[in-house]
């Protein structure tokens, strides 16, 4: 399984470059990388989906991340209960006569049509990787014009939102 790492970093210029430079230097491959601010404005969370690798390699990735002075915490979510989601936008061919079929198809995925043009619709879906890939596969025969995926973002399931950040910036009370 592709390892999923959650990495809390200082939210300051150059940090993303440090991380990607590290991956390039060490020859680590990533499948996706998302970055966004956490509840603490000084801290960002990166969610990394790594290419498949053995345990020793993953340990090395985590240790190397830890070595970065701007990295506050590295958590391996792969085996943990986690909530992991990505958002996908799919622009698919949809002549008016097919539109209801498309509607029916995406309905069970709780996907939405967020833009409609003469020959296409743009569908938005959120979910874990399996779900979004299933939808993409279903839509493919209709002709996918363009597709954009955010990559996975994740939190450990048991954690109160932001508990990770709280560990590093003491005394901060978090609104939930």
């Amino acid at each position, binding site marked *: 399984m592709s390892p999923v790492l959650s990495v809390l*970093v*200082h939210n300051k*210029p*150059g940090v993303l*470059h*440090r991380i990607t*430079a*590290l991956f*390039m*230097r060490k020859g680590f491959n990533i499948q996706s990388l998302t970055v966004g601010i956490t509840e603490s404005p000084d801290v960002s969370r990166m969610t990394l989906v790594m290419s498949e690798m053995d345990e*020793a390699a993953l*340990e*090395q990735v985590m*240790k*190397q991340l*830890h*070595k*970065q*002075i*701007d*990295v*506050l915490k590295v958590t391996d979510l792969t085996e943990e209960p986690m909530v992991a989601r990505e958002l996908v936008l799919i622009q698919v061919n949809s002549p008016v006569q097919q539109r209801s079929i498309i509607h029916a198809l995406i309905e069970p995925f709780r996907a939405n049509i967020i833009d409609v043009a003469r020959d296409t619709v743009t569908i938005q879906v959120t979910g874990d990787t399996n779900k979004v890939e299933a939808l993409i596969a279903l839509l493919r025969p209709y002709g996918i014009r363009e597709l954009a995926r955010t990559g996975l973002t994740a939190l450990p399931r048991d954690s109160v939102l932001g508990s990770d950040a709280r560990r*590093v*910036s003491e005394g901060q009370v978090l609104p939930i």
Partner: protein
Amino acid sequence: MPGLSEPTQDMSNNIPSEAVTEPKLLKGADMVVEVLRREQVDVIFGYPGGAVLPLYDALYQCGIRHVLTRHEQGAIHAAEGYARVTGRPGVVIATSGPGATNLVTGLADAMLDSIPIVAITGQVAKSVIGTDAFQETSIIGISTPITKHNYQIRHASEIPKVFKEAFHIANSGRKGPVLIDIPKDVAGEVAPFTYEDPPQLPGYQPTVAPHHLQIRKVMSGLAEAKRPVILAGAGVLHAQASEQLLAFAERYRIPVVHTLLGLGGFPANHELFLGMGGMHGSAAANKALYETDFLINLGARFDDRLTGKLDHFAPNATIVHVDIDPAEIGKNIPTDIPVVGDVGEALNMMLSVAVDKPDCSGWVEELLAVKAEFPFWFVQEGELIKPQRLIAEIARITDGEAVVVTDVGQHQMWAAQFYPFRAPDKWVTSGGLGTMGFGLPAAIGAHFGKPDALTVAIVGDAGFQMTLQELAVIGEMQLPVKIVIVNNGALGMVRQWQELFHGERYSSSLLEWQPDFLLLARAYGIPAMKIVSDAELSGQLEAFLAAPGPGLLECIVEPRENVYPMVAPGTGIHQMVGVKP
């Protein structure tokens, strides 16, 4: 003139050095000087230019010595030499653009050999960053993979905090280079100056004290061991743990192998010392590393030049790895007992736990017999000087007490093999990066670090020419640095590999034309002499080393000599060739 503008007012002469109670307003450039003073920096190596003019203005007559090298690469290697012999961070300054890029090799070198460096670079003014301004280059982008950390300062008010962190990061944990990029206009900004103590770095908390349970595991494992060996790396030197190492090895009678960079951590004349291990290590050292059942690695990183083919490295051993950098543990060799922490602390704890002496006298005697039977060797024949004998003679004449700085190549390996280091911090060499051109400037820095010691720079005829402009520093200041050029008329190490592995096709490795090294030295005001035959070696060398002031000795040596023993690339350390004549 582009890049040169706004002369800054000189405030540097009236900064109080005592702790300021109320934050005092200072200009950025003056803050830098003040910080350097507080960090007790006594010498800076550098080279000015447009973007660092305000900084150089503040440095003018500030009381901190500035050594103008003749190339920024020379400055950073000098800072490395200084750091290696003192254990304190070396400080280097370069201007933006080409000045900064000239530091790259030295940064990479310091990164691989864990040398504490604080490198200060000028940058174009904030307002023009990103516009391809004159002498703009993204040194942050360039240096990120080859520094432990780096900073670009955005306002003068950040200077005290950034410098405090930089010195702390460079010289703690696993040491390394830290670069600070200062845009030109920042140097002129005024801000309150406070020098907070200690730095707040939640993402950087190196583990210094090892876990006592791990230490117990080490000690109970040791009690059971039949064939224990200590592999001591430069971590011993960084931790200043030579005494503990000696006490520990003697208490349990464990033989000691050094890495190239660790030399001097354990006295070379000690009975239990097996020599350097690895590609050009001794037969006894490599036998010990191959046959051991209990390997205690103290601050070495299992570099491939040491291990040879990994499958054959300590194949039957329980591996203990003590390292202050957790990322080194398990990186190359699976580790059975990891110990994260400072080598000195670990040894203190190991010494405080008493366990039964392992029953390994047979093993130790066997290794000592191999050590006696297969010392590093060379055959003296004919009139030509053997480079190994040259080194052995330098060792004899300096009584093993000199600070020895080398360049990279065959002469470096011979120096490591034939100069018996009895004490730490007297050996300066470029290990991880293997940087030709390192030797001469590093010797200058080493001299500033240990001005009372005799500094001998042993360099190759090729590598010397990569940074020979630094002769100007030696000549100008008449520094008592003794330069020995081991002239084999070749890029010797390359020639050796071509002889052994490329069918003797000496592609671009023979120096059929060379400059007149003596004239060259004299042009820089350095007395020079040349020796060509073995008969004159001892006498001339004695005279050379005894003369006051700088000197350059060109020593014509046997051009076909190879470094042996050797573990050929891709083979195991038990497959050494050339252990005997």
